[in-house]
């Protein structure tokens, strides 16, 4: 629902700095919040490191990859993430670029369409998929293929906004006309002019969708597909430590991806800041 926003970029507040009681209250709020947010993460780490008789060791983590089904579901989730990213980019990069070039008056409409998935809760979407595609071809509806196709829809609000912002920041019309005038085909222009100029936005859209897919439980579970989050919840009914380690793994990968995006975003911001 949200992207990493850079709160440090706003320079207006120096005048509002409070003194005395206000500062103490502010720090109190931040310390309590930090405890609330850090303790469950610390507890997860501790829980996944528990050994027998109140000892701590790495046994849960060492055994994690040997757990029946773990590796298969990890691979399924990674494939889903890759598939979702590929479909998203193939569908959305040309579409958003086309809207910017030829149909700028429809931008608000396309944006509204892309935000629609937020209004349909994942549970309801899963229910709808089950009802609507009951008689569909089983290589789609009976396999994780249907998940990748629906995850593209779930990710639309983020991916559209990211690509739209990226396109707004480059002189798209000039670049495309230059390419066309030099005799390049539309495909060449798309792949060798638009895509390289959009690489930060494309990377961000990919990371946001991949992060969403790796943690998605609702639709996978309700459509009876096996993915890493579904496996984790099932494992949790027998062995809390294994489930906690698996969920830590999901978390670490997701956060690493998001942090990567935040780092790239700041580097990009600095670069544009210097050149302007």
């Amino acid at each position, binding site marked *: 629902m949200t992207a990493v926003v850079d*709160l440090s970029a706003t320079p207006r507040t120096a005048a509002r700095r409070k003194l005395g009681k206000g500062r103490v209250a502010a720090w109190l709020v931040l310390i309590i919040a930090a405890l609330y947010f850090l303790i469950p993460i610390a507890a997860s780490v501790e829980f996944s490191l528990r050994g027998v008789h109140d000892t701590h060791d790495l046994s849960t983590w060492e055994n994690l990859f040997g757990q029946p089904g773990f590796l298969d579901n990890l691979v399924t989730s990674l494939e889903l993430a890759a598939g979702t990213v590929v479909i998203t980019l193939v569908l959305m990069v040309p579409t958003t670029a086309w809207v910017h070039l030829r*149909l700028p008056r429809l931008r608000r409409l396309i944006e509204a369409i892309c935000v*629609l998935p937020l209004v349909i809760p994942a549970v309801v979407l899963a229910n709808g998929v089950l009802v609507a595609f009951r008689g569909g071809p089983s290589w789609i509806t009976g396999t994780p293929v249907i998940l990748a196709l629906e995850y593209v829809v779930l990710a639309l609000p983020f991916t559209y906004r990211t690509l739209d912002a990226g396109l707004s920041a480059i002189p798209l019309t000039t670049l495309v006309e230059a390419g066309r005038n030099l005799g390049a085909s539309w495909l060449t222009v798309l792949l060798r002019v638009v895509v390289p100029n959009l690489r930060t936005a494309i990377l961000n859209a990919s990371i946001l969708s991949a992060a969403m897919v790796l943690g998605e439980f609702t639709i996978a579970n309700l459509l009876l597909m096996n993915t890493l989050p579904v496996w984790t919840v099932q494992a949790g009914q027998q062995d809390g430590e294994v489930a906690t380690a698996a969920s830590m793994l999901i978390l670490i990968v997701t956060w690493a991806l998001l942090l990567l995006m935040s780092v790239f975003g700041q580097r990009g911001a600095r670069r544009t800041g210097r050149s302007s």
Partner: protein
Amino acid sequence: MAETKFRNRRQLDLLGLLPFLAYVVVFLGVPTVSVVVGAFQDDAGGWTLSNIGAAVGDPYLHAFVVSTEISALTAVIGAVVGLAIAFAVSASPPGGVLRQVVSTASGVLAYFAGVPLAFAFIAAIGSQGLVTKWLGALGLDITGFSLFGFAGITLVYLYFQIPLMVLVIFPALEGLRPQWQEAASNLGASRWQYWRLVGGPLLLPPFLGALMLLFANAFAAYATAAALTNGIIPLVPIQIAAVMSGNVAVGQENLGNALGLGMILIVGLALAGYAWMQRRTSRWLR
């Protein structure tokens, strides 16, 4: 379908949207419409209002009430705490480490929902949890506190509601120009008068909007509650899942669709309110 049929370029241009529109219609439109239509059909395909009747009837009405209560409670607490954090951060020097940490943490933590969140809280305050053990060693027994009940779900939901609030409200808070406060104090206003007459009224629409966004966010959430409680707590999404997996009386197969329609209406209304408040805010922000 010869190309000469399209007399002007605009019609050709619209063709470029075809793949996108077809995709959205098939994978979002068709499932949504079948939920909405199915809500008004019986098992044989005839039109009926009995699903709607059942959805607002006894066991399911209760689910809507519980879902609304939890969403409203976590939205209000999340909004107030998130605002407090945003205020605390906005008092810190611009470009400082604190801002960097809170902004990155909020962006990342707002993603921390679903399965990992549920297990993190079980690891912290479940019956074998770290905090439970610490407090137990201090002679404080919290094993009576159930993570799987109303209070537990509220505590867990706040974990993604508060960061979302910080992300949404911070731009509005930063958009309040220091010049406005200086102007007010030059005209003899106290801090309290500034907040009552200038800052407060400006922050009210974004605050109310964020409240509705948080409400929708909690109302639509399924994964966290499902992983945490194994489907014990009677929230609307949990009931839909139960209907989908067949735990329902014969003749009520379309009940899930009616409950889904109810969710779409409530979430849609809340998000429409958010969008409307956002538009009002964007008039003075920047």
